[in-house]
């Protein structure tokens, strides 16, 4: 027997473990806190340093300028991002869950080979495809349209993998069998039983794809030249490129960045169960 450690040393270990975790949290959160305080400053206050104070407080002014600059193009970008990420992730989740469901429920020849292809797709470095996709899109004439950004984000092989894992976890065979005995057709069974039961998994796939599209930068950078079609990431990048010459852009970039982060932070705080489920399914299997 090692014997029970003295209470003093337990207390010390506890302090060390939690202290290390607190340090890590400080590292993670202080850039976000900086973003929050910086977004409240005017250009002068921002460039004067003293980042964590509320010197030169002008949040209202920043928001007004953000809304007014270039006829409110910022909120146009915001709407675009919501469109790309919302619609794209919704459609992508449907496509992924349908495929994952089929892989889970049905047996057919070459199934595991086909699934192997999906897993290979997970490993493809997608940015290497952006350039050929751009050239293909310009041949078809969809470059610099909503489609150029929306269509590529409909595909997420990892979403198919996750969906299959979730279907295996959430849909008992008996439920499907019962529906079939009641005379429901196969697609009907998928739509009203399978999809409903795997809904938590659907939300997880949606959340991860929404994040991926919201954060997407390379694809829109390559595909879009019309500012009206930009998502937030690309718009903020364009503003930031101006800021080096015109410091008045700094508060716009910082305040715009803060607002751009808000939806995802809210989503991750309120949907904790779902992203944890996604990362668990990805790790344990």
């Amino acid at each position, binding site marked *: 027997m090692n014997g029970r450690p003295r209470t003093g040393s337990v207390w010390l270990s506890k302090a060390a473990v939690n202290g290390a975790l607190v340090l890590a949290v400080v590292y993670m959160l202080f850039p976000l806190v900086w973003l929050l305080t*910086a977004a409240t400053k005017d250009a002068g206050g921002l460039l004067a340093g003293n980042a964590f104070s509320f010197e030169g407080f002008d949040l209202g002014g920043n928001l007004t300028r953000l809304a007014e600059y270039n006829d409110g193009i910022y909120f146009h970008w915001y709407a675009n991002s919501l469109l790309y990420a919302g619609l794209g992730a919704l459609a992508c989740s449907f496509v992924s869950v349908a495929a994952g469901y*089929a892989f889970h429920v049905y047996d057919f020849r070459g199934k595991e080979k086909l699934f192997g292809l999906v897993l290979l797709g997970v490993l493809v*470095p997608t940015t290497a495809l952006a350039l050929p996709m751009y050239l293909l899109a310009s041949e078809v004439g969809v470059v610099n349209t909503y489609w150029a950004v929306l269509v590529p984000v409909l595909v997420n092989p990892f979403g198919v993998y996750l969906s299959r894992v979730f279907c295996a976890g959430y849909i008992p065979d008996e439920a499907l069998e019962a529906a079939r005995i009641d005379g429901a057709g196969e697609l009907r069974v998928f739509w009203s039983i399978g999809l409903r039961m795997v809904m938590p998994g659907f939300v997880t796939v949606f959340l991860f794809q929404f994040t991926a599209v919201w954060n997407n930068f390379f694809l829109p950078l390559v595909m879009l030249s019309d500012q009206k079609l930009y998502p937030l990431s690309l718009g903020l990048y364009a503003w930031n490129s101006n800021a080096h010459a015109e410091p008045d852009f700094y508060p716009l970039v910082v305040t715009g960045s803060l607002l751009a982060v808000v939806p995802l932070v809210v989503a991750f705080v309120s949907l904790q169960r779902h992203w944890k489920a996604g990362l668990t399914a990805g790790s344990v299997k």
Partner: protein
Amino acid sequence: MKARTRAATILLTPFFLLFTVVMVVPIGYAVWLSLFTEKQSGLGFGGTETVFTGLDNYTAALGDRAFREGFGVLLGYCLLYIPLLLAGALGLALLLDSALARARRFFQLALFLPHAVPGIIAALIWVYLYTPQLSPVVQAMEAGGIGFDFFSPEGALPSVVNIALWEWLGYNMVIFYAALQAIDRSVLEAATVDGAGAWRIAFSVKVPLVKASLAMVALFTIIGSLQLFTEPLILNKGTGSAVTSTWTPNMYAYTAAFDRNDYGLAAAASVLLALTAALLSFAVTRMTGRRKAGKERTA
């Protein structure tokens, strides 16, 4: 049975159709493009014509010092970033998994939160925090007697690695934590009864049991690292940083395509990058064994 085949086909078709359009065709097209070069015809009055040039684009890319240096940067980046990421994420997960940790839900959420920040915004924030006149960090470091120029040639790699760590540490920590939580508690109790201390259990029992997750995270991190683009691009623009516009292979391909309009060269660079990813993926999965595939089939 026919009805089932029909249903399977209907449910799988949208995905594989899109998969073909968005992944298979572009890969094929990239390979095709990489074999051609646009040449000025005549005296340059007649516009350009596209000529089959075989592997010339590949030899041009590989012969270009900037491109080779890009791979050197990636190698340095991976050697610095991946061990830090794996050790940091696993270390934090072990701390959180230890019996001593408090407020686990809060820590998990707080550490994960940077993942909600788009890469471009993460890079913007950190560039501000690297800028001496603006940054409380640089000012605090200077006050502490540590002078470090994040935009200098020696600072380039650590600057980018730090941004990437900030974005991905918590995300991967949650993956490791989930794997640790899935360990059968009776195994840990048995180790405790055998007299193993907390350190011993962490490193001799827990870590070997989450090896599969470690391998998976390593694999995805390598593939992600090869595509490094956004963060160095922000550092490159107007900060006076030592990060050049062709710093990584992806940046090289981008400038080849959009600054120099040399699509053949850009395609060759992209194909070489994808090949590197394929080779490394193959090596990593080989090294970590094929147990995983067997497990999936029984699941």
